[in-house]
């Protein structure tokens, strides 16, 4: 009997202790998947935000106020993302939110921010986040639709007719699959095979064998590491010479390392961050990208990835909105985010509006081929 009393008492003491009061700073809350399966996305995102926080504060903060970024790791778990969002809104009383890292986690925390009337800028790709438009929700990565369109335009130019798709059974793959199933027939291709693989599957020869039996002109694979690397290796093993398109989900050096020689010749849409050296000098993004890359690599001693750029764009868009409206009130941030035009970010040039809470189009992607263990922009 005393045991219950004592343990509940202990909980009581811990729970009632400590309360946070808002200070004279601008608080931005982040829910990111720093650990767990999506850590390859969340870690560069966290690093980028930490780096930017220091840089912005070193140069006088935002409108003279100190910027305070509070980052919670959701461990790629939906439950923890919701709890973290709750904690940011209620305990830390943030003025704007960034996150989540994955589409699933973003969809899960969206309602918390909407209810609290605090703007949230997501770092996840799924189109469902901003379509239909939710007044409080924005996102920085290009939508799957842009990537798919880019791939299919390339395929059209090669004269391909029959297309097979191979998608991972998680939020990322599902979103890609929905768009693929819509756009492949719409753009005049025949969808001859629609195969699925699990996020932790280690052998996809069965799926590729099935696809081979349908003899498509090209295969489009939608997934994040390590699945697509396994697929590239299995394709090499099966000696399939059908062209293989990958998604922007594997736009990291790690993919090339994992797939090794099997990565040669694969095609994928890339944000310009990955190929910053190769874009023309007069491109408006060039200077910004090179700065970001050198700062990031110097500080963290690790290669930069496109994913950190999503966080860069999210924070800088919020900063822009605060300065535009000269207010860090959540409502003002939201209103001014919608007014941002021609903002040069790492992912592309953002033109936001009340109807478009992403602000990018397919021109934010370039098509690249993997050659000599590096990306080469292909001219179309």
């Amino acid at each position, binding site marked *: *009997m*005393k*045991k*219950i*009393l*004592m*343990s*509940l008492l202990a*909980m*009581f003491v*811990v*729970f*009632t202790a*400590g*309360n*946070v009061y808002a200070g004279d700073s601008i608080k931005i809350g982040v829910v990111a998947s720093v*650990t767990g399966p999506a850590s390859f996305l969340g870690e560069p995102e966290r690093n980028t935000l930490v780096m930017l926080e220091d840089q912005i504060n070193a140069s006088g903060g935002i409108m003279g106020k100190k910027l305070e970024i509070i980052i*919670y*790791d959701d461990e790629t*778990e*939906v*439950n*923890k993302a*919701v*709890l973290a969002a*709750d*904690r940011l809104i*209620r*305990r830390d009383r943030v003025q704007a939110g960034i996150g989540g890292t994955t*589409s*699933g986690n973003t*969809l*899960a925390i*969206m*309602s918390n921010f909407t209810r609290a009337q605090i703007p949230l800028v997501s770092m996840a790709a*799924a189109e*469902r986040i901003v379509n239909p438009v939710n007044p409080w929700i924005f996102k920085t990565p290009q939508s799957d639709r842009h990537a798919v369109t880019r791939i299919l335009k390339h395929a059209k130019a090669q004269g391909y007719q029959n297309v097979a798709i191979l998608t991972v*059974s*998680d*939020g990322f*793959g*599902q*979103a890609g699959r929905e768009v693929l199933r819509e756009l492949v027939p719409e753009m005049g291709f025949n969808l001859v095979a629609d195969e*699925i693989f699990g996020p932790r599957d280690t052998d996809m020869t069965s799926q590729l064998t099935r696809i081979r039996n349908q003899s498509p002109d090209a295969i489009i694979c939608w997934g994040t590491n390590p699945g697509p690397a396994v697929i590239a290796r299995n394709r090499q093993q099966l000696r399939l010479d059908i062209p293989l398109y990958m998604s922007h989900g594997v736009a990291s050096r790690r993919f090339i390392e994992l797939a090794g020689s099997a990565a040669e010749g694969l095609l994928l849409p890339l944000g310009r961050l990955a190929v910053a050296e190769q874009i023309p000098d007069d491109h408006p993004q060039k200077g910004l990208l090179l700065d970001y890359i050198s700062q990031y690599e110097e500080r963290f001693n690790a290669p930069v990835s496109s994913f950190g750029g999503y966080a860069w764009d999210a924070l800088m868009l919020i900063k822009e909105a605060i300065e535009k409206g000269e207010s860090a009130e959540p409502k003002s941030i939201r209103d001014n985010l919608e007014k941002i035009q021609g903002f040069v970010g790492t992912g592309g040039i953002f033109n936001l509006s009340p109807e478009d809470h992403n602000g990018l189009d397919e021109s934010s992607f370039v098509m690249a081929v993997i050659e000599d263990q590096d990306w080469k922009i292909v001219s179309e």
Partner: protein
Amino acid sequence: MEGKKGIFSFLIFVVITFGFPWMLTNDYYLSILILSGITAIGVVGLNLLLGYAGQISIGHAAFFGISAYTSAILTTNYGLSVGTGIFSGIALSSVVAVIIGIPALKLKALSLAMATLGFGLIVYIFLNETITLTGGPSGFVGIPRFNILGYDFYSDLAYYYLVAIILTFVIIISLNIINSRAGRALKAIHSSENAAMVMGINVARFKLFVFVLSAVFAATAGGLYAHYLSFVAPSSFDFHFSIKLIVMAVLGGMSSVWGGVIGALFLTSMPEFLRIYEELETILYGLILILCMMFMPQGIVGGIGKLSGFVMGMFSRGGGRNE
């Protein structure tokens, strides 16, 4: 003895549960308490199965999931009331529990563990792949908040009391079962199935009864979960969650209804405290689990019982008594 003590424990539980939340300085903790309470409803059921009937299930997340999704789909896509949705979820879960329980409960120990584990995985894959029905891996959004008879539990405090009341009911039901003829039958099954059978206990029927009851509790929790977060995804009901439920039951204390409650509260809130250690969190979590099981084999409830017995003993000679 057991009755008097039980009533006293129960009163303490009621006073703290219902008198405590409005003293919280921050309503963020309330959401942790709500999730702990919801999970506790499921764990108390699992505790009956594990601690009293001695049957393991590594698939209980499936019952959470079936019910959460049933209610989510019925209320969101078909406009049914939340009450009807949750009730249907519970009904479907118990039907599934009967279907899977009849063959599975004939299995012994680790085979049963495997069968329930396999069942859980199949349900998980089903939730993941039937995209048109469940929304697939990226989850099911827009589930209405719990409401009944025109009152919606929009504020967290209201939802907290709702969960607290249901948890109290679940505890009352469980305590009654333990102290009834059925409870004694269960204990007999736990110590020796053959002996229980010889004594004329219908072992299969009792095992199935507890299995279905624990599924009903898990399903109740699943419904409350879906209508609290307004969002469900298959990953919330995967194999890890089933394991976590068992860890909660054992860590709290298997042979006590309160163990389920304490275990759920402890394991749901612990990550919040470990958060400050960031990268070390996983390691510490593993370490705590190992140490608790090594030095408190009776779980937290048993451990605190020992400790309080020890403290009592220091003050009054011979007064301390372990459970």
